[in-house]
């Protein structure tokens, strides 16, 4: 029965969105992890989503989401002049991660709403199937 695919589809959506929430949490937690070496500093991570074609069901209609990979934002870290910082380099600069906290916050809200959407889909599908099971009683 194809209705069971809905659980796989919504489940894949939930796991993809939770990966996105994980990267957001990691980015926000490391927003102030400065380093004296611009190559060593933390870089903002973002997941790359991809639709699974023909992966879940036999027909092309069911396509869940897969996390294709996590890519790091290649933008240069921002340099701060903090000569008193023990991590500062010879010129007195420390390098802050290229994490945009405002962007991360909006990303977090978007991910959490999408997660809720998938939960609702799953709940509705479950209720529909239970109602179908009660058919004729």
């Amino acid at each position, binding site marked *: *029965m*194809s*209705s069971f*695919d*809905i659980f796989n*589809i*919504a489940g*894949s*959506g939930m796991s*993809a*969105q939770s990966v*996105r929430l994980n990267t957001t949490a990691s980015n926000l937690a490391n927003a102030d992890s400065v380093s004296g070496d611009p190559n060593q500093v933390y870089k903002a991570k973002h997941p*790359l*989503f*991809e*639709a699974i074609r023909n992966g879940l*069901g036999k*027909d*092309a*209609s*069911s*396509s*869940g*989401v897969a996390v294709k990979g996590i890519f790091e934002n290649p933008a240069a870290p921002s340099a701060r002049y903090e000569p008193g910082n023990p991590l500062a380099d010879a010129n007195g600069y420390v390098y802050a991660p290229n994490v945009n906290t405002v962007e991360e916050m909006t990303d977090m809200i*978007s*991910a959490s709403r*999408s997660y809720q*959407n*998938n939960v609702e*889909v799953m709940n*509705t*599908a479950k209720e*529909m199937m239970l*109602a*179908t099971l009660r*058919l*004729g009683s």
Partner: protein
Amino acid sequence: MTSAIDKHLGVHAQALTLRSQRTELLAANLANADTPGFRARDIDFKAALAQASGNAQQGVHLQTTNAGHIGPKAVNGSLAPELKYRTPLAPSLDGNTVDAQLEQAAFAENTVRYQATLQFLNSKFRGLMTAITGQ
């Protein structure tokens, strides 16, 4: 479509299957709301039901003699509806055409209609039970 019970259930049995297929499609659209390049899909329910119940308009088609030939799109009596791509109202830069609000509304509508079909089927079965028990 041979047995008397099948005839009694009428179009509702196919409608239920098509509704559950549409639920699956809309769930896939919602799950891929943030996937770059994903194109939202849906079925034309009226056309799909007409096709499933064998009432679709069948035009004149070329004969297909090779697996690579493109045949007629709709085959009467088939429960495999033709998938169509949604026309986006506001396409996004990443090529995703899922409008979450629109999909949610369609999902809610589809769920209610699924439950309506279930009610119809339920009353058909209740009628059958009354006929069988004679009470």
